[in-house]
């Protein structure tokens, strides 16, 4: 790589908490090496200096919730050779997508002292609903090792080592006895995309589904089983699928039968 022009990497923030970008700063061991290989052309968490595009890679965090952001993402796409969305907000709309389908004006009245200053879209939507996305990295927040892996794969022109299988696979690799089977704890692991190395189950906590649906996710079957065999009440089931990736389509439709009638 030495002697060549270092590719420009830009990090863009939309509606989000910054947790995913911070994962990049968290890559302490790899960060200096990374800085030798790429130019951080836009990364406001680290420096307020912004270089102009075009960018070789743009990492996009956050969902689209305002008309302004809806335009801004088009500019990011136009200026970037590769767009990688990072985190639950960017890939599914995030926790803020819980407002989708609800009365946003009423929410605004409850939350803000001056709701008249708030200009927002009705729905919080993933980046892929607006532009073509080249790669999606899931999680709330993303796993920093996966981020380094994706950037590293990009630099070397190889396929990233990211799996689309269930969280259960990582439980099995770790040797964690299944929580649902051995303790009756509801867990979204079998329908959730891997990436966290089965972190929550390794601490005795059922998976929250923060990486969103796995490939060929079948949450309807899991919900049915949790309801009939584990005796989980409807309200618990609808809540289980109402968190960080609530609006990912397989989760949104699987919880419908368990939602309280309105």
């Amino acid at each position, binding site marked *: *790589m030495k002697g060549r022009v270092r590719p420009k990497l830009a990090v863009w923030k939309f509606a989000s908490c910054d947790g995913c970008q911070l994962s990049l700063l968290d890559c302490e061991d*790899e960060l200096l*090496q*990374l800085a030798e*290989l790429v130019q951080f052309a836009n990364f406001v968490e680290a420096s307020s200096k912004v270089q102009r595009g075009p960018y070789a890679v743009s990492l996009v965090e956050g969902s689209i919730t305002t008309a302004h952001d809806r335009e801004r993402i088009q500019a990011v796409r136009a200026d970037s050779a590769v767009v990688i969305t990072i985190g639950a907000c960017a890939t599914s709309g995030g926790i803020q997508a819980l407002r989708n389908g609800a009365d946003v004006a009423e929410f605004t009245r409850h939350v803000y002292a001056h709701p008249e200053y708030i200009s927002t879209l009705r729905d919080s939507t993933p980046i892929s609903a607006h532009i073509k996305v080249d790669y999606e990295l899931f999680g709330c927040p993303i796993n920093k090792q996966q981020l*380094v892996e994706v*950037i*590293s794969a990009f*630099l*070397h022109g*190889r396929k990233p*080592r990211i*799996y*689309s*299988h*269930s969280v*259960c*696979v990582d439980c*099995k*690799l*770790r*040797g*964690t*006895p*299944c*929580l*649902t*089977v*051995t*303790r009756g704890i509801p*867990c979204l*692991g*079998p*329908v959730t995309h891997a990436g966290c190395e089965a972190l929550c189950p390794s601490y*005795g906590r059922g998976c929250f589904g923060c990486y969103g649906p*796995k*490939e*060929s*996710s*079948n949450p309807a*079957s*899991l919900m*049915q*089983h949790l309801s009939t*065999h584990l005796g989980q009440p409807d309200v618990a089931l609808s809540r289980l699928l109402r968190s960080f990736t609530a609006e990912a389509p397989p989760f949104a439709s699987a919880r419908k039968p368990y939602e309280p009638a309105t």
Partner: protein
Amino acid sequence: MTARESTSTVARPLRMEVSGLQSLVAALWTAGYRVLGPTVGEGAIVYGEVRTIADLPAGYTDEQDAGHYRLRQRDDGALFGYNVGPHSLKRFLLPPRERLFTTIRTGKQLAVEPEPVPTEKLAFLGAKACELAALLTQDRVFSSDQHPDVQYLARRRGMFLVGVSCTKAGGSCFCTSMGTGPKVESGADLALTEVVTASEHYFLVEIKTAAGADLASQLPLRPATIDEQRQAELRIADAATQMGRHLSTVGLKELLARSTDSPHWDEVASRCLSCANCTLACPTCFCNTVEDVTDLAGDHSERWRRWDSCFHDDFSYLHGGSVRASVKSRYRQWLTHKLSTWIDQFGTSGCVGCGRCITFCPVGIDLTAECAALQARTT
């Protein structure tokens, strides 16, 4: 594997006291083995290091059914009064992740460093009959003449196996259907049967190999009486009547081979999560994938293998896409491979009837029930 071949003289079964089991564990450590056996861990009986018999799950048992496992107490203090748990010997012989080699780049030079061949000697205490049958099934996969697996065979060669016959069967067990249990007939160096009565607690010991005879000669054993042998046999026979499940294997291989278009696969696919728990819990499923890891600079790369499963989309990825894109085709692959094409490939069934795939399926899909449903559709 000479030490593993059966001894020609069928020795009379011996009686060993519980204190003798302690001597057995100690003798194995002294002989340089790392002794692994049943221990209570994270809500299940799992393989762990056994330094003394106090590490064994005395008075514990398990309750199993489709999608259900609970650790329970039993009141007789039995040390091996449980059925197989979430882990199997596969974890140790074919570890979930394993580095195969490392490549270092210096300038234009590439240096490949092979991974050292494992040298650790492992001893397993308490391997049940289905577990031993699964080991022999994996042996056939990894010791083929064309593709012997160096890492697997190195671990396998040094192993010492203390089998324990089952004196109770679980809700997911069907070893009698597969002809693999509940009695430990072969595959172990020593075979134990635990007998707990109102007044006594002892083991019946059968010597199965020369290595087993060697170890037994260091232990305080005496010939078992006819009654002691009968006590052991009765308990094993009792276990055989308690099978929670049954698989009718007559014509099953052929039935699966001609059922590729059965509408039943769609029905299973509506329940199946393609989560892969069944294949990863299965002690005979051997599929693994290899992958390369590089550092950011690309000067250091490693090749690893890790467990894989036919339930994954990537598993059948060929040029342009996945051959088994639908969950239906993946479930069909699993069931058909286990119970039909495995026989074409390796000469035995791929299933030993341990029931792990049934117990550890998060939605309780039961291969014996699925086979029965396929059988019912065609009769």
